[in-house]
């Protein structure tokens, strides 16, 4: 099934940052929603701003419109404010779009843990993300960076602790 672009994607003004405040708010919300949906569908890995400029997400070839660099940065900042984006370096050249926030992932993982009475057990990261037991879970196949972020969020809430094992890292749930 091909990706369902929202109506805004075919609307030329979508690719010009609107000066009118109210209009701009609506526009940015639409951009954020699109970025998250696209990132989820295409399992977007971390990317650089340069790559983002050329990605179909921000450049609609058929319409011959691209979101200019400054506007892309406004969208990225908006995503970051909402907790859906993380800059991977100090110079803000690469970023990761988290269509689901780490806290949300953490919640799903913990739900599975408690539902199956697995508190006080220890897991390796591999087992969690790729083990047979978690095959039907949404977080199955989650990439390690995101998984770690999720567990860190749980750690903040004292529901888990990330530990070092012989051959990698693991987590203990409380």
């Amino acid at each position, binding site marked *: 099934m091909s990706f369902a672009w929202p109506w805004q994607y075919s609307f030329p*003004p979508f*690719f*010009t940052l609107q*000066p009118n405040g109210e*209009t701009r708010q609506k526009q940015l919300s*639409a951009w954020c929603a699109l970025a998250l949906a696209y990132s989820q569908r295409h399992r977007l890995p971390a990317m650089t701003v340069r790559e983002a400029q050329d990605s179909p997400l921000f450049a609609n070839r058929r319409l*011959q419109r691209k979101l200019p660099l400054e506007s892309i940065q406004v969208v990225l900042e908006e995503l970051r404010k909402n907790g859906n984006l993380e800059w991977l370096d100090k110079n803000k050249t690469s970023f990761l779009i988290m269509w689901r926030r780490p806290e949300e992932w953490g919640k799903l993982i913990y739900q599975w843990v408690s539902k199956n009475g697995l508190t006080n057990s220890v897991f390796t990261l591999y087992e969690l993300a790729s083990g047979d037991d978690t095959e039907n879970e949404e977080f199955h196949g989650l990439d390690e960076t995101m998984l770690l972020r999720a567990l860190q969020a749980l750690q903040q809430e004292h529901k888990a602790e990330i530990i070092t094992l012989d051959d990698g890292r693991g987590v203990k749930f409380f």
Partner: protein
Amino acid sequence: MDRFAWTSGLLELGETLVVQQRGVRLYDGEEKVKFDSGVLLLSTHRLIWRDQKNHECCIAIPLSQVVFIEEQAAGIGKSAKIVVHLHPASSNKEPGPFQSSKYSYIKLSFKEHGQIEFYRRLSEEITQRRWENMPTSQTIQVNKDSQAGRIRAVGIVGIERKLEEKRKETDKNISEAFEDLSKLMEKAKEMVELSKSIANKIKEKQGDITEDETIRFKSYLLSMGIANPVTRETYGSGTHYHMQLAKQLAGILQTPLEERGGIMSLTEVYCLVNRARGLELLSPEDLVNACKMLESLKLPLRLRIFDSGVMVIELQSHNEEEMVASALETVSEKGSLTADEFAKLVGMSVLLAKERLLLAEKMGHLCRDDSVEGLRFYPNLFLTQS
């Protein structure tokens, strides 16, 4: 012709070339001399003539030798000439082509034209006497034996020395030039202080001087470029003149405004009004000042200034915000429009069309598409859809 001296033709330090002209023949007084075809060069210091066929043959005369110059118009078979009257040759003059001459003037004959420009430049140089400000060594280079006279600077040291001298000269010239300017600025400061104190006196003594006098003072201040210093009263910031003018404008502009949909840019008004007046044209400042009073005088027109700074005159009955609604309809019908297209459709000037579209955008009815293809306006689906 005995005032001329042989020269290498090279310019001295501090001497600059002003203009040159080919095809010039020299006359000693009324008599032709063998210098019949050359390039005549005018520098800040000298008049130089170089033979076009034999570049080694080059003579020059310092401009300080010139008493005055005249033009001699061309005739049939005769080229235009410049007559240069000269001081007697100085005793220490360098050797030249003629030892003596019975004439105290020479003629420059312009066989290939160019005399008008040359005459102009030569007059300028003689008036300005730039050679006095930029002293170069007075001795003119002798053709073959070059040792006498100027210190011929050699090598890098020489070049550096020349550059240093040139820099010092430039510095001196610049500070001299600006001396006058700083004196002028001081005077201007005094003038502003004076007018400020007058303005304050007016403010204090409001009761004592009559309104007429206040208005007259204000107009003096206005003519000096200082806007109204007194607090705004019922008549706003105008003078009698501007009040009258405003009333006049209301009369003149009523019909044209109605013809143009109730709104005109201030530049259109300016052209219209001045064309109608013929003589006694209005200055832009007077127009603006008069227009600023329109509303307070309760006249049927008003001045409106858009966010972009564009100024227009509107009929009181005109409501730009309502026009925006109709603009939205027009844009929706066509899907999208540029300011140009909109202007053509509605029959407005592009400037006013753009202002209307921008106003519509500000009100949230339209949104923009800014690309290499230009600026287009669309109905604001961001707010109306989803």
